[in-house]
């Protein structure tokens, strides 16, 4: 377990370095960094301030070391769009909203995918199995940004059941969470189905039935507990998709989260904010992956006692 942990932590750090390197190079290697980092109409003193903050007069490797130092201290500089506001502060101010949306989407995905996945394995080739396959195919083919607008048109404009956009009540959360979660339902359902099929075919399920255990308990305790381990590995990837989904979906529903912030920042060429968002998102994703792997060890005793 300890060796497994050390290895995973090492990989995590490596990935984070790679992220900073990519962001750093994109900031530097696409022509004159100062013009890249600054809007065209920037004042001369802003330009000088930025140059000095990022040490742009130094050689590249020294710049990178300084850059890493800045990143570790959380110094991404001041927002260009909102002068005087720290870029990281802007991100942290809104990350709660994004996490709220992501969590709601995750809950929706799990609540829908687990029962469908389990039932389509238990009743293989039945109506629910075929319906589930169709939902999966559809879910992976619908673009978030479009289905969001279609939802608004149906449920907000025509039926007037839900508010069109913004954040506030529970009702505001429903459409964006469903839109983001929808895509996950497809993948998660397929994974649970195949893991359940494998578990249900195993000898330990046979033994549980031979013990006289109720079919309900056989399925939801013995089989699902084993089958849950496989989709759990997918949770890391899922969190990445939630982040990606949140960016377009926040724009569609004007949800005041980090996604909306970063898209506005890109439009305004507010590079410090874009950088801060990218790095924070990368940290969230990579750390979530690490946590998932540790959880994996806890759920599967074979790894825990390795």
């Amino acid at each position, binding site marked *: 377990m300890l060796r497994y942990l050390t290895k995973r932590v090492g*990989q995590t750090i*490596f*990935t984070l370095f*790679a*992220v900073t390197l*990519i*962001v750093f190079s*994109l*900031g530097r290697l*696409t*022509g004159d960094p100062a013009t*890249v980092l600054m809007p065209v109409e920037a004042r001369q003193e802003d330009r000088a301030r930025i140059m000095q903050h990022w040490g742009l007069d130094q050689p590249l490797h020294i710049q990178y070391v300084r850059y890493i130092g800045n990143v570790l201290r959380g110094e991404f500089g001041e927002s260009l769009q909102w002068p005087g506001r720290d870029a990281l502060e802007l991100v942290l101010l809104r990350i709660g909203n994004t996490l709220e949306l992501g969590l709601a989407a995750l809950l929706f995905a799990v609540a829908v995918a687990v029962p469908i996945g389990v039932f389509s394995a238990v009743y293989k080739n039945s109506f629910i199995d075929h319906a589930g396959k169709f939902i999966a*195919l*559809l879910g*992976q*083919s*619908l*673009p*978030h*940004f*479009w*289905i969001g*607008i*279609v939802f*608004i*048109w149906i449920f907000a*404009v025509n039926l007037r059941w839900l508010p069109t956009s913004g954040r506030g009540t529970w009702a505001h959360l429903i459409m964006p969470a469903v839109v983001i979660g929808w895509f996950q339902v497809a993948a998660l359902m397929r994974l649970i189905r195949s893991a359940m099929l494998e578990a249900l075919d195993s000898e330990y399920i046979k033994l549980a039935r031979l013990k006289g255990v109720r079919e309900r308990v056989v399925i939801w305790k013995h089989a699902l507990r084993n089958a849950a381990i496989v989709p759990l590995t997918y949770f890391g990837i899922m969190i*990445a*998709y939630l*982040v*990606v989904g949140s*960016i*377009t979906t926040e*724009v*569609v529903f004007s949800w005041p989260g980090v996604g909306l912030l*970063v*898209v506005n*920042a*890109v*439009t305004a*060429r*507010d*590079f410090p904010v*874009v*950088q801060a*968002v*990218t790095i924070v*998102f*990368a940290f969230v*994703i*990579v750390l979530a*992956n690490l946590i998932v792997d540790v959880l994996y060890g806890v759920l599967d005793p074979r790894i825990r006692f390795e």
Partner: protein
Amino acid sequence: MPDASVSAVDGAPTGAAAWWRRVRELPLLPIAIILVVLVIPAIFAESLAPHNPYSGNLRARLQPPAFLGGPSEFWLGTDHQGRDMLSRIIFGSRIAIAVAGAGILIGGFIGTALGLMAGYFRGVTETVVTRLVDVTLSIPAILVALVVAAAIGARFSAVVAIVALVLWAVYARQVRAESLKWAQSDFVARARVAGASHFRIIVRHILPNIANTLIVLSTLQVGFVIVFEGSLSFLGVGIPRPNPAWGLMVADGRIHVVSAWWIAFFPGLAIMLTVLSFNMLGDWLRDRLDPKLTQV
């Protein structure tokens, strides 16, 4: 009750009948949709499109589709600049094909080459490639796209580069796993004994064996690329305006959803139909050519 008797082998039909039978087995609906929505419009855009996709008539702004009582010349209505939606969607198919084609070719080539090398040479090459694949796959490409767009603005070449950046890793991972298996096969050992060069072994002996995998993988990636490009364009970090990219058109329609839903609806429908068809085609090909390939 399933048929208990072992059914006799059907008499093999000949000529046209056999040909027709083979055609009937194809997933005809997805192929038809791909042809009608994507391929034919892209080839014959100039002759098919009734209007100029770039310039509109401001007096004919936000006209509903003809079948909903709009002017008969605009089958799918017009957008906020009075441009014909149908013409824009037809020309948009070219962008979808160009991005998917270029992205898959470049990403697929790089990924296949690195995957083959990793699986064949093992050792340091493999370690480096797999580590790079892990890193690439752990960073959402959309974030990279945002940084690039913030640095150099929205560009066609940037979109293709970012698509290739994601895809190379997907290809490299799959190809490495496959070539690893073939590199240990008897015929590769024989070729080596016969004195074939590494390059020759990889290209002549291993590559043909993973061709099926590459075909299935590429088909399944088309859908992903079209949605991905659409998302980037929708966010304003993909294809620049005023190109008729489907994602951009959905973005234009977003603010008009109350008064003119068709602006966002039809381009998105084109994306959905295309992607759904490619995913169905890919699933069909996977079952036929490469049943082992489940992780994509």
